């Protein structure tokens, strides 16, 4: 089975935010909830790099490990989804997630949290595929119709890749080889000291 992964090539990411608005467009995510965002490192200084971040659909997902109502599940394709009917909006997953992926809609003036919302890898949720209930709670289900996440499909520079992890890796490896240097993905220098 395929294992779905995202990879953002920081040599190509230009912080254009197409991934962010593509996601808004596809799922009509409300103002204030960002399933995907672009993070900038060293803003305005030499070495500035940006990276598009959303739920990374972890194999051993910390959100699932801490969830008190066990609302998370992993699909056959390796996509981490959750059941909003079970979610109690406690925010534990937000503490656990290394990427800040879980989002909570503001439901009242006192800031009470609504049910958690996050990137679904455009794979909907536990409701029937393409049902109104699925759309209402989780947005479009592109995977079920043979399409990949729109954020990656619309990326301005093809920096953001999405799909089966092995294919993403092949594509990225090919790119790095063509560049003729070491993998210059952000974080390499930190991990391996140049």
């Amino acid at each position: 089975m395929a294992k779905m992964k995202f990879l953002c090539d920081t040599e190509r990411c230009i912080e254009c935010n197409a991934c962010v608005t593509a996601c808004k467009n596809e799922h009509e995510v409300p103002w204030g909830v960002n399933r995907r965002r672009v993070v900038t490192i060293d803003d305005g200084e030499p070495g500035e790099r940006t990276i598009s971040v959303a739920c990374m659909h972890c194999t051993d997902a910390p959100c699932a490990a801490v969830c008190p109502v066990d609302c998370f599940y992993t699909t056959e394709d390796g996509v981490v989804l959750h059941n909003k009917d079970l979610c109690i909006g406690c925010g534990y997953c937000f503490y656990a997630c290394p990427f800040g992926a879980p989002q909570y809609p503001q439901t009242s003036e006192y800031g009470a949290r609504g049910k958690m919302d996050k990137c679904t890898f455009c794979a909907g949720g536990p409701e029937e595929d393409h049902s109104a209930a699925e759309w209402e709670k989780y947005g479009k289900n592109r995977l079920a119709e043979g399409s990949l996440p729109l954020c990656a499909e619309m990326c301005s520079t093809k920096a953001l890749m999405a799909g089966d992890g092995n294919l993403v890796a092949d594509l990225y490896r090919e790119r790095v080889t063509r560049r003729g240097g070491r993998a210059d993905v952000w974080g390499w220098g930190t991990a391996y000291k140049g």
Partner: protein
Amino acid sequence: MMKLIKRQSTPNAAEPKQASAAEAIDRRTFLRRSSLTAGGVAAAIGLAPSMVKKTEARETEHSTAEVSRIRSVCSHCSVGCGVVAEVQDGVWTGQEPAFDHPFNLGSHCAKGASLREHGHGERRLKYPMKLEGGKWKKISWEQAINEVGDKMLSIREQAGPDSVYWLGSAKHNNEQAYLFRKFAAFWGTNNVDHQARICHSTTVAGVANTWGYGAMTNSYNDIHNSKSILVIGGNPAEAHPVSLQHIFRAKERGAKIVVIDPRFTRTAAHADLYVRLRPGTDVALIWGMLWHVFKNGWEDKSFIEQRVYGMDEIRTEVAKWTPDEVEKVTGVPEEQVYEATRMMAENRPGTFIWCMGGTQHTTGNNNTRAYCVFQLALGNMGVEGGGTNIFRGHDNVQGATDLGVLSHTLPGYYGLTEGAWKHWARVWDVDYEWLKGRFDQGSYEDGDAAVMNTNGIPVSRWIDGVLEDKDNIAQKDNLKAMVFWGHAPNSQTRGTEMKTAMEKLELLVVIDPYPTATAIMQDRTDGMYLLPACTQFETYGSLTSSNRSMQWRNKVIDPLFESLPDHVIMYKFAKKFGFADELLKHVQVNGEEPLIEDLTREFNKGMWTIGYTGQSPERLKAHQEHWGHFNTTTLKAEGGPLDGEYYGMPWPCWGTAEMKHPGTPILYDTNKPVAEGGLTFRARFGVEHDGANLLAEGSYSKGSEIDDGYPEFTADMLKQLGWWEDLSAEEQQAAEGKNWKTDLSGGIQRVAIKHGCAPFGNAKARCVVWTFPDPVPIHREPLYTPRRDLVEKYPTYEDRKSFYRLPTRYASIQAKDYSQEYPLIMTSGRLVEYEGGGEETRSNPWLAELQQHMFVELNPADANDRNIRDGDMVWLEGPEGGKVKIMAMVTRRVAAGVVFMPFHFAGHFQGEDRRYKYPEGSDPYVLGESCNVAFTYGYDSVTAMQETKVSICNITPAA
């Protein structure tokens, strides 16, 4: 958050589409399907694009209705990205990547990826509205046209046709832009202009006067072939994000990227070398680079000998720009100048990209010509991977420029001479004398030039047309009515004076999908109308992208609310003014809608100068249907019905459509025959100057039967060459006494090309433009400069009594030293989320959420000097008194002493939130101060481009 789509229940969930065994699948489909099984991958780089699925029946969450997939083109920037819109029951329900499209291969930036909001946005101008006693009142279209029309006719009667200003738009499609220019001519004025004046007018003037045409010479796609890429005064990572996909393809093949900018932009973050210069010193820096070229003998000597005029005069000027002097003026140390030059010299072909950072100066035309000279010196012109890749701004600013929505020319750069008017009168089939009678009679000039032959007031100066003393203006009377037809006022400088000008007018009209800042920045109580135009997704037609490709854009949805397409509104006004029948003599009108295809055919009949003649609606539609057939580097169709043609038939697409010219993908490329898209430099400036030969020497396009330079083709020249008999009898009749620009049969062009020649001749490019204020580009200090020590040596121009009808100040402004009270240099630019004046994009919640505050970038040193912390509110004040209250962003992105502001905001004015002034429900989500309230006087010496890339200011904490 509002619900954008009516969510309907779908009792039966749709089945994923399965492939039948017999169905041939392309690689894209394979990848899509494999995502369910073996796994797929998006963002496949470099794949040959395949056909996007045609209309298919599919049930969705929204509706059980059939989904139609409509091909359109993004209406934001000039890259011209393909769009696939999914529509059900007339509602825009989905947006899919246009993987097939040769320019964007499915990609978008933040703006392009949020286009579907156009089909749902509620913050639109919904109905015709009238300001009555300070309140907006909904009125009917009929009442609006009658009242506005009557007022205009009365102004025309009393003050003359030039007292009504028709400000058009780069957002019009080609057909609308063409009709708009023709409409202004029929009204009887040259007071017509659009955004090109304030974005790339200095490019068009500078570049056209160097080698013939004032447009991008190569294409975004051709950058794949570049071995070096120099970007100066441009930030494509934000302004043209999809272009970075092409730039990165070159980079990953080893190309070097040099970014020269006062600001460390997001583009600079991906460069091999970033060079920071002081704003307004481009000529000094380019001459500093050429100093190294000449010193090291890096110039392309044979190219210069064969194809360049005047390089010796450049050498003389360049000799003054020693490394010391360059550093003193630009702030760039010698090793950086040398390194940038070496990268370009050792990695050829190299391309040269520039945008507003180069153009928006009092010396803008000098800058653009210096850039061209640099490319000529390195022999980078007319080759794949080389060229001057001038990234235009709006989606159709190239088209609107080509179609002459400008105060100094008719469509096709024919100018305003008697010959030009007679040419278009013939195309329009109207009486020349009648046209002439539509204008003010007499002359505005000291000589005897008729009014119709006199440049109109440019958009950058319209406020002076209102405010300047009547006796100082070279026209009958002041401007009394202003029509903003698809144009944001906040992109023009001197905001406080603009407010006064808006209030002084007798009539102010906005025709736009949004109310725009015009609706709210003034304090009128009456005499103002807002008329709702629809967007380009609610109509159809052609547009010309930056690379000169013409694309056909389909209608996605019907006009929303009571909005109407621009050409319908033009028809309504023409009918009111009584010239609709003459205006559309050869155009079918359905109800009140002129047929777009007939408008295309009409400009096809007259645009010989730049080859807008071969792109018939039928050919354009065929190109749209075969997006996937075009090579994504060369743009050439490989096989199929369009084999050998270039996508969108980039102009010049010579001759008639029947001639089937493939378009010209790279200008001045002598390696191809003209019939296959090759070209020479244009013989536009005569055959000799001061005794020197201006024609090419020993250089000619492949297959040319004339093995040397030659002048532009005329009927007489055909006879001399013995080629006259190649014309058919009808062509001979049409061509007699005419030339390649005025022969309406296209015969002269056809025969010249048949013999391998370029219809416009074969000449040298010129480095010296003897008709310009500075024949050799020279450095001049900006009008407002903190470098008082340089003013004496590099002074600005003398004041001029009449320039585009208006007195224009230079030296008298520069004479006064403001640098003590206003010590910071200010410049401006774009943000990726917003476009132009920003009303459209700030009304889109998906974009507005990402940029909620107007801000100013300032260096930590300047912030600390003023006790300002990141996120503080500050007052920024310009030397003419305009001030804005904005948020401080403290960052090293700008150097100490330089501040930067984005120009997309409006709605606040000098500290006041004017949201209450919008018609109810039409206010953008995000408002903010307009930087141009603080920006100042200053106009290019050739085109009157406003100086928005360098002025001075002071910043203080806002208590």
